[in-house]
């Protein structure tokens, strides 16, 4: 392990703001993409069910 303490780890030698913003925004984008896909999938399933039922 490279770091001595947790606060040292969070500080990142003074560059904490830049480093953590990069990592967090990347993570947020990926999570958002997965959530958006999940919503799209449920919507698509619901819609295709509706179409089939209306044809019946």
């Amino acid at each position: 392990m490279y770091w001595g303490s947790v606060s040292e780890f969070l500080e990142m030698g003074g560059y904490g703001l830049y480093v953590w913003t990069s990592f967090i925004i990347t993570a947020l984008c990926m999570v958002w993409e997965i959530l958006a896909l999940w919503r799209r999938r449920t919507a698509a399933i619901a819609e295709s069910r509706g179409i089939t039922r209306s044809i019946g």
Partner: protein
Amino acid sequence: MNWSKYSAPLAFYPLAGKMIPWFSIVAALAIAVGLYIGLLVAPTDFQQGEAYRIIFVHVPAAWMSMFLYVVMAVWAAVGLGLNARLSFMMTQAIAPTGAMFTFLALLTGAMWGKPTWGAWWVWDARLTSELILLFQYAGVMLLRTSIDDQRRADRASGVCALVGVVNIPIIYFSVQWWNTLHQGASVSMTAAPKMATIMLTGMLLMTFGFWMYSLAVILSRVRCVILERESLQVWSKPAAAAEVAEVR
């Protein structure tokens, strides 16, 4: 085994469904180990300080953004050449993920540039090409959404993606040429020539993780696209219908 049968969207649908969990698991593992190495194990870089740790997301995102564009163009070429519906669906599914990685590469690049060069943005060949790449992703996606006829939307955005893939290397070269002309603003941004093995390992693991993540996300988007476009056929085939109904 006859692989060609999977070129039919409805046959591909369950196959993609089976692959997604595996890619997701591998992606999660690779990213977890990559983050552990990148953030906790790797030593600091004596030139750039701790800010260099941004490259553990920046470089994988930049690589994926370019790689995905090429893959998208290859699918577009296959679609245009063989007139295969699934290829165009892949093109459609890849674009948003590629655009997201392009955006992330630009954003993390700025985050790295500010502490390292003292500027958020430099008109360097790599940065400029990446920015143009973002515009090209946007162009491909917007062209698709503005055309109502599905077949024309597929083919037109495919041609657009193919034209763009020729453009990016030319832009990279021309901006480099342009930078040698404007000596004043040039910034030497050659990455550290010798990278410690442990840093390289972390970066490659992260790249592999992002790659697997892209595969999982793109496959599930392709499944959405198949559902949206071929909902009638899905429900006319019992096997496909059962598969869709079972995973809610």
